[in-house]
């Protein structure tokens, strides 16, 4: 039983290696596109054919399996309990968040993470209640993909992973590292861990039922909607160090002169 988490770890590592081998010859093309379009990063998708295929598969899996289960869960479980389940798993992620804050050179944030974990695990009854946030200990969202970003690793092309969804080579590389950092699976038998993981996924999906439906109806092309949103969101998360708000889309996004220049040509 102790080997099974390790097996999965090796599988993830293998996937990362494959992803990098695929990514290598495309780096040159990435630079080229960067120079020609203003916001090239968000739309850089040389594997679009494959990505769209996997995206479609993921969406079917969601529509036929995950979403119905999540709807059932949502109908049975009260909102407050859903929040508590979400708090519980967020609290368990503490080692990942703290370690990545340290790796990103943010010891202050890491200290807050320790404080959060101690407060929520005790007064918050095993993490079910996020007392720490009420006390002003802010929740952080960190993972190794972001750490790599802070270290200057570019995201690379858009990549949709089977079942896991939107990603890129950099963030994919972060998955096995976070898995090791998360510590918890090493203490639990794989049965417990799998069960908990499923509850976490279903509960998480149940909390965004309306949002996903709205995103689908608001977009002309849901695939491009998700691709762009993923790129922007990850960029904002990586940048949280430089800008508190974490929201600084490139300035030329707002440059009407660039459009008028095109006018005169």
């Amino acid at each position, binding site marked *: 039983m102790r080997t099974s988490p390790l097996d999965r770890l090796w599988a993830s590592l293998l996937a990362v290696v494959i992803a990098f081998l695929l990514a290598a010859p495309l780096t040159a093309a990435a630079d080229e596109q960067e120079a020609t379009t203003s916001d090239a990063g*968000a*739309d850089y998708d040389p594997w679009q054919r494959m990505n769209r295929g996997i995206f479609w598969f993921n969406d079917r899996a969601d529509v036929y399996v995950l979403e119905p289960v999540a709807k059932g869960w949502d109908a049975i479980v009260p909102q407050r309990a859903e929040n508590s389940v979400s708090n519980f798993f967020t609290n368990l992620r503490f080692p990942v968040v703290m370690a990545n804050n340290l790796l990103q050179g943010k010891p202050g944030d890491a200290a807050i993470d320790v404080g959060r974990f101690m407060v929520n695990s005790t007064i918050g009854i095993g993490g079910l209640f996020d007392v720490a946030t009420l006390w*002003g200990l802010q929740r952080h969202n960190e993972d190794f993909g972001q750490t790599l970003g802070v270290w200057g690793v570019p995201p690379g092309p858009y990549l949709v992973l089977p079942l896991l969804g939107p990603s890129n080579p950099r963030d994919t590389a972060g998955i096995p590292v976070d898995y090791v950092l998360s510590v918890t699976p090493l203490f639990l038998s794989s049965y417990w861990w799998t069960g908990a993981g499923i509850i976490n996924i279903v509960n998480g999906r149940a909390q965004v039922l309306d949002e996903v439906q709205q995103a689908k109806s608001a977009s002309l092309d849901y695939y491009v909607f998700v*691709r762009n949103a993923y790129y*922007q969101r990850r960029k904002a998360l990586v940048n949280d160090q430089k800008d508190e708000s974490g*929201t600084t*889309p490139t300035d030329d996004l707002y440059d009407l002169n660039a459009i008028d220049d095109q006018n005169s040509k």
Partner: protein
Amino acid sequence: MTSMPSTTKTRSKLAAAALLLACMTAPGSVPARADDAAVAVVERTTSGVIAILTDQKLSTDEKRKRVEDVVLQSVDFETLSKLVLARNWTRFSDPQRTEFLSLFRNHLSMTYGRNVEGYKNEKVTITGSRAETGGDSTVKTKILRGGPGDVMIDYRLRQRDGQWKIIDVIIEGVSLVSNFRSQFQDVVSGGGPEKLLELLREKNVKGEPLKSR
């Protein structure tokens, strides 16, 4: 770093009080910073919307209508649309531009107007603002949802004819302008302006109201 909502709220209240005081004691001599005017627009809009949403005398349809009016007053929709189309704007003829503006506006109010039904007493607090290069202002807000965690929403504003108007909404780091630009870019480069108009027309016809949970 750990800006507690309560402190920022107090701070913005203090700032507002200070501003008011400055205006009263020395009218004209202390010009308000551009930022403050932009903040005021966002403050007016969000509080206006919440006032409508909490008004129990209004039906859902009336609420949607009034929210739309309040929001459109504060948005420079033409600039927003131009930014969304970016260099594709030049490929649109004048009638196509006019049609695009109305279709896109319908599309947005239809899809986001549904949120009116899902309002669960969330509060909005303004957490800060900053001047951008080129004269724009960004006003940062947070929707306080309690349990499920807060949502950061930034508004980018630009001055036009002396009025600050919203030209982009950035939700948790995701800019609406950038997102629609990506989507529309694909369509226009593939099928030209007419294709985009056609898709928007279709989408607007199909739009069915979201079932409330």
